């Protein structure tokens, strides 16, 4: 909502500049922002009058006009179809700056000199209307500065209102807060209706079929109006409030809505064939065209205003095209009603239309403001559209909604806020908010019906805090609640993963976890993903069932940017269906650690880069596990739809699968538009977390020297290093402290299908220095043992 600053000043007498007014409102919860309405001042633009006007020969629409500004007369060329002799108009002199046109210069059109311009609303920056020149009231003073005459040297207050504050959706509502902050009264507009003797209740009957959806429906009949344009003061208020002026009758309903917060609707009464109003639910499949020209097929969710037969308005949302006020409308049925917020909300959702009216009803309009608003509008229509007001209101209000009374304990106010506000001050604030207060030990506060948001003691406490100002609440310098609560192991583990992986050179990624089902199905074809019912895009239509998706997506994005050397990880999530549950969706969220690498490390001055490969992936996992005190895992050949069958392992710790690692299938990598190999691992966060070992106790450092030996063997490619090491350990016994592979060689010297492996062995006793001979004996036994167990050739170490 937006309103002109001057409108608020009309209602409350404060001398705060616009910016200050906005700031003060913001600090009491009515967020407002003030900005000048005109971007540029309207210099050299004044009120003028067309003295003479005649068509220019051989042109189809240009006219030559003589314009007087009182003291001077100018010749101008004008193309507006509505320009006529005698009109008061807005005249821009040479040198004026007009919107979108720059500075105005002397011109010559079809040989006729032009010394200025007669302006339309668009050229003045008032509206987008460029259909004709602006015409002014006859009493406009010649030569007066246009911005002064138009009253546009004003500020716009733009409001960002919270959904609970339906009371502030109007100029009076805003003025109430201002009055309260300033300790002043609101100036209510005073008017006197002139009714004719004919009773409106003789002309139309009203009935409500669903009184919970429509607690109150009131109407007046105004006969013989003349539809035309509104006077400038009405237009100005609407324009500055961001609403386009249409015609006097419609403008007045909008103006009064802006002023009072009560939505009104003017019907062309001709169209009420049965001279009655029936408020009822729409029938299933009933057709109805709203005045924006859209045809709707209705359901009973929509509350309909009818003339007893056909629908004439979707209650509280929008009028019907069939009963719209048009240029030849003479008799008006003016509606002022109260509709149930939920009903209006459902109607507007069903219709897919949101309007100024629906916004107000949805947040809760005041049922007891209905007749004031209607009378105000009727009065203005009589003033500015002529017409006669039939006597009386037809008011269908079966159950009056009364103000509620709430008990307020002053001690509770201070207990919640941590303040020391006196009871007297609380009473003053409540009364300024137009609440009635009975001063007892517990205050009895009666809440006006324009504040439907206030129903409990806590609501009143907030009102007191809001008006007193939050800056009055002290900032307590104490720490209450527990002084310390330990972190969950889950959270320390997260930190550990990140420290370990970044230390190894991996970059952390974050993903939306929303996935493209077409790509996801390639990774997890067996697991139907959890679908989003209202996705924003096809590639965000499901939740990822594997962290591999986000890894590949990130690599794909980087590859498209030519970042090809990638090592990334994510502490992410997979969303799965609970497979044990039948039929029913019962989602499971699995925390996953995703690790991926691709590309080649950079060449450096001290060495060449190398292609990222499986061993680097394994090394990263191993180091991470070591860092996090997770036992080293076993790599067991297994299949997985995302990985190439030639290189994929399940990772096992304590006989439990903790995840998969390997080479991503070429077909999948291609589908993600990645043109290089990708190695990846996906690990189960919680299983790994649970297999973490406690911190070690200190082990005394060795006291006796070690005896190192080296051992080289040539074996078949099919033999795993881990198997050889385990045999060496088996035979090495207690005295063998460590075995490590330090060289691997393939080539002609070792022969096809074979590899040469070199191990370093360290022997040590805890209790004595080892003799050379005994080490040699064990060493020889190991060689024998390897020969017996594998087809090996031993090379001297």
């Amino acid at each position, binding site marked *: 909502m937006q309103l002109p600053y001057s409108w608020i000043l009309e209602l409350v007498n404060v001398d705060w500049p616009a910016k200050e007014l906005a700031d003060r409102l913001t600090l009491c919860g009515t967020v407002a922002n003030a900005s000048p309405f005109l971007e540029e001042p309207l210099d050299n633009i004044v009120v003028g009058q067309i003295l003479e006007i005649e068509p220019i020969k051989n042109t189809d629409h240009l006219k030559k006009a003589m314009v007087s500004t009182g003291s001077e007369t100018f010749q101008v060329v004008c193309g507006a179809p509505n320009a006529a002799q005698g009109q008061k108009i807005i005249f821009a002199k040479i040198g004026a700056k007009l919107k979108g046109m720059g500075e105005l210069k002397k011109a010559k059109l079809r040989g006729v000199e032009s010394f200025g311009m007669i302006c339309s609303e668009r050229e003045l920056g008032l509206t987008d209307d460029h259909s004709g020149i602006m015409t002014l009231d006859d009493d406009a003073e010649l030569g007066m500065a246009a911005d002064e005459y138009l009253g546009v040297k004003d500020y716009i207050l733009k409001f960002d209102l919270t959904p609970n504050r339906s009371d502030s959706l109007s100029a009076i509502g805003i003025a109430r807060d201002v009055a309260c902050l300033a300790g002043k009264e609101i100036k209510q507009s005073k008017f006197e209706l002139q009714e004719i003797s004919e009773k409106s209740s003789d002309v139309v009957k009203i009935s409500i079929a669903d009184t919970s959806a429509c607690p109150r429906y009131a109407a007046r009949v105004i006969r013989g109006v003349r539809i035309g344009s509104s006077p400038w003061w009405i237009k100005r208020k609407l324009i500055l409030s961001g609403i386009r002026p249409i015609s006097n009758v419609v403008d007045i309903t909008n103006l009064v809505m802006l002023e009072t917060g009560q939505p009104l609707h003017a019907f062309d009464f001709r169209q009420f064939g049965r001279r009655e109003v029936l408020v009822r639910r729409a029938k299933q499949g009933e057709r109805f065209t709203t005045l924006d020209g859209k045809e709707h097929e209705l359901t009973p969710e929509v509350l309909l205003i009818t003339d007893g037969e056909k629908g004439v308005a979707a209650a509280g949302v929008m009028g019907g095209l069939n009963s719209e006020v048009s240029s030849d409308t003479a008799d008006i049925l003016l509606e002022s009603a109260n509709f149930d917020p939920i009903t209006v909300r459902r109607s507007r959702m069903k219709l897919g239309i949101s309007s100024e009216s629906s916004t107000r009803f949805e947040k809760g309009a005041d049922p007891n403001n209905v007749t004031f608003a209607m009378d105000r509008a009727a009065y203005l229509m009589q003033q500015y559209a002529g017409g006669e007001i039939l006597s009386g209101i037809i008011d269908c209000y079966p159950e009056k909604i009364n103000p509620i009374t709430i008990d307020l304990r002053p001690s509770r106010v201070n207990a919640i806020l*941590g303040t020391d506000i006196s009871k007297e001050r609380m009473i003053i604030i409540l009364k300024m908010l137009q609440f009635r207060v009975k001063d007892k030990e517990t205050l009895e506060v009666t809440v006006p019906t324009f504040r439907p948001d206030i129903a409990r003691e806590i609501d009143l406490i907030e009102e007191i805090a809001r008006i007193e100002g939050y800056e009055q609440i002290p900032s307590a310098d104490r720490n209450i*609640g527990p002084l310390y609560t330990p972190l*969950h192991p889950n959270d320390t583990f997260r930190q550990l993963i*990140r420290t370990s992986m970044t230390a190894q050179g991996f970059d*952390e990624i974050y993903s939306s976890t929303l996935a493209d089902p077409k790509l996801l199905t390639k990774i997890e074809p067996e697991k139907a993903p*959890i679908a989003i019912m209202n996705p924003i895009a096809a590639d965000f239509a499901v939740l990822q069932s594997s962290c591999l998706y986000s890894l590949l997506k990130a690599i794909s994005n980087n590859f498209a*940017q030519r970042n090809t050397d990638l090592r990334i990880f994510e502490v992410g999530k997979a969303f799965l269906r609970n497979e044990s549950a039948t039929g029913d969706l019962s989602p499971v969220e699995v925390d996953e650690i995703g690790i991926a690498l691709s590309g080649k490390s950079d060449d450096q001055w001290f060495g060449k880069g190398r292609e990222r490969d499986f061993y680097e992936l394994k090394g990263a996992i191993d180091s991470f596990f070591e860092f996090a005190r997770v036992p080293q895992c076993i790599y067991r050949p297994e299949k997985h739809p995302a990985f190439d069958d030639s290189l994929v392992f399940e990772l096992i710790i304590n006989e439990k699968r903790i995840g998969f690692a390997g080479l991503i299938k070429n077909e999948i990598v291609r589908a993600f538009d990645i043109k290089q190999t990708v190695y990846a691992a996906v690990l189960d966060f919680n299983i790994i977390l649970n297999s973490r070992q406690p911190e070690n106790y200190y082990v005394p450092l060795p006291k006796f020297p070690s005896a190192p030996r080296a051992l080289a063997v040539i074996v078949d490619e099919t033999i795993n290093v881990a198997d050889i090491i385990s045999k060496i350990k088996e035979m090495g016994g207690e005295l063998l402290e460590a075995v490590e592979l330090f060289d691997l060689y393939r080539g002609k010297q070792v022969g096809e299908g074979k590899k040469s492996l070199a191990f370093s062995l360290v022997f040590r006793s805890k209790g004595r220095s080892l003799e050379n001979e005994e080490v040699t004996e064990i060493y020889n036994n190991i060689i024998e043992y390897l020969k017996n167990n594998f087809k090996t050739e031993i090379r001297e170490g």
Partner: protein
Amino acid sequence: MPGSNQISAILQQALAAVASSASLKDLEAVDNRYLSRKNGLLTSILKTLKDIPIEERKTFGAAANEARLKLEEAIAQAQEGLRTSKRDSSLDPTLPGISHKIGSIHPITRVIEQICQSFYGMGFTIARGPEIETDYYNFEALNFPPDHPARDMQDTFYVEGGLLLRTHTTPVQVRTLEKSKPPVKIITPGKTFRNEAISTRSYCVFHQVDGFLVDEGVTMADLKGVLVAFCRDFFGEDLKLRFRPSFFPFTEPSAEVDISCFLCGGKGCQLCKYEGWLEILGCGMIDPNVLNNVGYDSEKYTGYAFGMGVERIAMLKYKINDVRLFYENDIRFIRQFR
């Protein structure tokens, strides 16, 4: 059998080697060859003592030791000489050192961890909850009535089975309160979802850190205290804070917290849209309805809650102007954060 002559011969040889050493590395080689404990030429001579007649051992041993000391001194002297000598001109200190690259932690993690650390220091601990939520936990228990306009503030993604993707991490508040006894003092970092069109200013996924405390006698002044402490810790000591009334269904009174713009100090700049203030978090006293919903006596216990958007804070902190960057995972972006 070695004799004293042999010792002096070895010594002369060694001293010559010292003299001809051109670098520390050469000296190290000499040291190794003659003085290595295991098989140095001079040291191993001492090992042959047991083979020498007893009467000669003493002099021989003394000679060997003397030779060793002499050589050690010569090496030390030569080392000193070389150390004070000219720089190794082939060493270029502007060459990159030999190291391996360190990865970067994503800015979202960085901000979440900083926020959590700040609150951890004040006695809060972390709680987490599911991202697929029920309407009850995401809305109803948090005092969002069905068909209430407040629900429009949070455009929701629905998934199969009548479930939804949580629109805030506040449901964790309800889940935690349900299974705890007061006092409860928690922060809840996590991922949240809103069905919003993607632009530079908004994304359909974002992160939030919520926090709350429930105990006897908790007041709004305590809320102010904890947030003032946090904002100063996170954004800087001489920061100004502004609390202004707002609306959240699950708190009452509710407040929005602005901090004075840390870039311009409140004078007005592009970052703060010339307001001088930056909106940083929402907060309030937990609505009695929420406490009643989890079975707490709202007359006895009161509490506060607050929540902030991680991406927004990260954008302000690092001057990031496009929220999509967080989820594109361009490593050139991620690596800017150290």
